[in-house]
Each structure stands twice: as C-alpha cells, then as structure tokens.
C-alpha cells in the first residue's frame, strides 16, 4: 500500500493516478468525438499524456530507459498528427 514515509513516492503515485485519469478522459473523446478533427486532437493529447506517464515511471523506477521511449513517442506522434491533418486538408499525404 501507500507508504507516506517517502513523500516523493506518494507524489509520483498521485501524479500517475491523475495522468491515467487524463488518459481515460482523452480516450472517451477519441471514441465519441463528433467531428474528425476532434478525434485527431484526442490522439494528439493521448500521446502527450503517454509521454507524461512514461516520465513519471522513469522517475519512479530510477531508470533512464523510459526517456528513450518518450522521445520516440514525441517524434512519431507529431508526424502522425501532421499526416492526418494533411490528409483532411488535401485528401492526400504526399503529393
């Protein structure tokens, strides 16, 4: 269970709970979004929240391995958002 003797661990657990709740809310918008741009925005927010969760897990486990994954998600997520927006705007990604 929670061990309040270590303040940092408790804060990390609360932070992980908050970010997980944020992920759930974003997933709801991704599934129910009335318009196409809403879903793309939800996907964009989903990857930013995933980066936040990975950073928190990295601090918790005291390992820098998670940082690499977070950096990859940051780069690939941006490319994905741009590709989807381009598809909506032009009907094609690479013209």
């Amino acid at each position: 269970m929670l061990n309040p003797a270590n303040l940092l661990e408790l804060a990390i657990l609360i932070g992980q709970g908050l970010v997980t709740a944020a992920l759930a809310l974003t997933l709801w918008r991704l599934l129910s979004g009335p318009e196409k741009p809403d879903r793309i925005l939800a996907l964009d927010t989903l990857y930013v929240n995933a980066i936040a969760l990975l950073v928190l897990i990295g601090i918790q486990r005291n390992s820098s391995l998670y940082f690499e994954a977070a950096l990859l998600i940051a780069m690939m997520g941006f490319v994905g958002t741009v590709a989807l927006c381009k598809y909506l705007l032009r009907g094609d990604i690479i013209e």
Partner: protein
Amino acid sequence: MEYSLLDIFLSVLILFGGIFTFIGSLGLVRLRDFYSRLHGPTKATTLGVGSLLIASVIHFSTQETGLSLHELLITLFLFITAPVSAHLLSKAAIHLRVRSVAKLPAIIEETERSD
C-alpha cells in the same frame, strides 16, 4: 517526520504537472465546440509535461551520475511541435467547416447562406 527540501520541491512539481495534465484532458471532454477544445490540451502540453520534465531533470541530476539534461530534448521538441500541430488542426477544422459556438461575421454568414 522530516522530509528533505529536494523531495518537497520535486513532489510539488510532479503534483503540479499531474494536475495540469488532468485539467487539459478535462477541458478536452467538457468544452463545447472544437475550437475551444483545441485550447485545453495545449496548456497540458506546455505546463503539465513541462514541469514533469523539469522534475525529471532535477531528480536525475541529483543522483550519483551527475548532470542530466537529455530530458530537455523532449521539452524542446514538444514546445516546437505543439503550435504547429494546433495550427494544422484548426486549418483542417476550418476546411471541413466544423461548427463553432461563436457567431460568424455577417458578411460570411450571407455567402454561406447563398451557397
């Protein structure tokens, strides 16, 4: 119970980041139209993930391994890409004529009606 100043500072940063990330997604769910929804998560990106990454930098820099600045790469990358993707998203929404709760200017409303 005695906490070190570093632990308190890191905990405050982590809680701040978590709360802002949560508020950003809450805005994504609660706001009424797409253009106002676009505004919520960008704050989560800059303030939420930003302070979490600062906490990560401070935490790993105070370990035995010495200064660790590679988390700043993610911060830099997110801060550069967030405005670009927000701009593209709003352009796509305007292109698809997504409904807004704001009223259109009178001149545009006339041309929309004659379409």
